[in-house]
């Protein structure tokens, strides 16, 4: 890909995680309004619309088409992505690529999701079962926590990790999110509460699962190269999207071939590519906002990012190295364990958090943050994206 322009996030919008009783398209209009105002960009300037496909239980199909009519928008590019938890990541990266190439000047990326409208044992579970191999796996009845429970078991087994200590990653992330009014939880939890919460899929407990909820986020991506094609608002809040990376392993949920399920090559390779694309070595990244839905996954991602040796990810948390004031802060927003988790929106929450860190407005602010790396993933981290953000000049 030939990069001809620099893409920047000019504006952000966010609906606090919680429960909403209005339709998704109204949530979309609210959060888009907020992002456009933040960017000081008018609706008429938008020439690209990018979003994750709505969840199957969203009543409105043809969502982007319906929305473009409501907003009175003519655009050159639209996309609805449907790859589970990476959908928001791929929608955003496609927008950035289109701005870089000049295909569009002002890209609007958004995600909205309501999980409060669906019974988790009924149609929601049917959808989850359908993401497994329909022939050979769906009839087993496995859940997503049931999948991750097995990599937690293997992680403890292969690296002699004390299972109870994994609760400390949840404690850290809930603590990071507690002061942020936009997150689902306003109280931290302690180790005993995590380990005493009800079992979901042994050995995973309830507080070690990301809590499903409703939410939404939007970002405006523009070019700011100063080459005559400058379409950014020149606001102080402009943040550069410095690097993009993406990878998918030849695996499907727990079905890997030779490698252990405690290795996550997709996130490792996506992060390497994003670092290269952004021209930033690992030790130049100040903050990490990974999509890490279970505590051992945050530990393994810490390893895959090259921050510590394999098997040492949990120890890094226990030693305070991943705390907001630690050597390499991980999930200062709380991540999806601390914030709550609408999976289509979570990647965009990570981007919003990256922008807030670089603007110096994050709820749990990392001092002197100049570069942030975020990830998204789907399945059992079979596919991943990684994105590097840099403070604007």
């Amino acid at each position, binding site marked *: 890909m030939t990069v001809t322009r620099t893409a920047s996030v000019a504006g952000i919008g966010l609906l606090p995680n919680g429960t909403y009783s209005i339709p998704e398209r109204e949530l979309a209009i609210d959060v888009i309004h907020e992002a456009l105002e933040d960017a000081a960009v008018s609706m008429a300037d938008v020439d690209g619309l990018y979003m994750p496909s709505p969840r199957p239980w969203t009543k409105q199909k043809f969502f982007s088409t319906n929305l473009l009519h409501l907003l009175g928008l003519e655009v050159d590019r639209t996309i609805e992505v449907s790859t589970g938890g990476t959908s928001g990541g791929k929608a955003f990266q496609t927008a950035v690529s289109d701005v870089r190439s000049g295909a569009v000047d002002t890209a609007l990326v958004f995600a909205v999701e309501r999980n409060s409208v669906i019974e988790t044992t009924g149609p929601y579970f049917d959808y989850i079962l359908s993401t497994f191999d329909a022939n050979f796996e*769906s009839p087993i009845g*496995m859940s997503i926590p049931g999948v991750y*429970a097995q990599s937690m078991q293997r992680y403890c087994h292969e690296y002699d990790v004390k299972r109870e200590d994994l609760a400390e990653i949840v404690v850290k992330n809930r603590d990071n999110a507690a002061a942020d009014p936009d997150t689902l939880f306003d109280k931290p939890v302690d180790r005993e509460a995590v380990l005493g919460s*009800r079992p979901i899929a042994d050995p995973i407990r309830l507080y070690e699962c990301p809590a499903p909820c409703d939410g939404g986020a939007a970002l405006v991506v523009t070019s700011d190269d100063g080459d005559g094609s400058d379409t950014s608002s020149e606001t102080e809040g402009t943040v550069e999207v410095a690097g993009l990376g993406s990878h998918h392993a030849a695996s499907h949920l*727990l079905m890997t071939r030779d490698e252990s*399920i405690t290795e996550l090559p997709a996130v490792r390779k996506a992060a390497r590519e994003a670092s290269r694309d952004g021209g930033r070595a690992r030790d130049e990244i100040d903050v990490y906002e990974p999509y890490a839905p279970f505590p051992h996954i945050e530990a393994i991602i810490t390893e895959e990012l090259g921050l510590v040796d394999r098997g040492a990810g949990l120890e890094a948390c226990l030693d305070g190295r991943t705390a907001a004031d630690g050597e390499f802060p991980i999930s200062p927003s709380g991540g999806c364990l601390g914030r709550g988790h609408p999976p289509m929106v979570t990647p965009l929450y990570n981007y919003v958090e990256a922008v807030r860190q670089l603007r110096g407005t994050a709820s749990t602010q990392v001092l002197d943050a100049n570069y942030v790396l975020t990830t998204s993933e789907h399945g059992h981290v079979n596919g991943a994206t990684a994105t590097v953000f840099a403070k604007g000049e």
Partner: protein
Amino acid sequence: MCETSYTERFWEALSDGRFLIHTCNDCEERFFPPAPVCPSCHSWSVDWIESNGTGELYSFTRQHATADGFPDEIVAGVVELDEGPRLLTAIDEAYADLVLGDRVRVEPREYPHNYDRGCRSEYPFFAATTIDGDE
């Protein structure tokens, strides 16, 4: 009426108590689920072979939240067959009795759950049980 799919032979064999997997004629990779291309070297020269269904328990869980039509608790895990491939399978054992590395055999089982298997509804599914270490 379903047309014959590639995996029909697996389900027919399973009905007879045989567990079929695939082998690649070029690189000798053994793989599962069966598909007409080798996932290792991408050769299209592949064949069905019979596995005795035995292997080791690679990982397992007891799930306390399950879909409508399933039991309130499910024990399931990943088995690494002696021939090499791993597969996800139900496990017909008490969770507390299982240990990583247990010897297991994957065998046909009646499928009682109310989950749509489409044209496979007349066929058994499969589950693993523990066996003696010598087997």
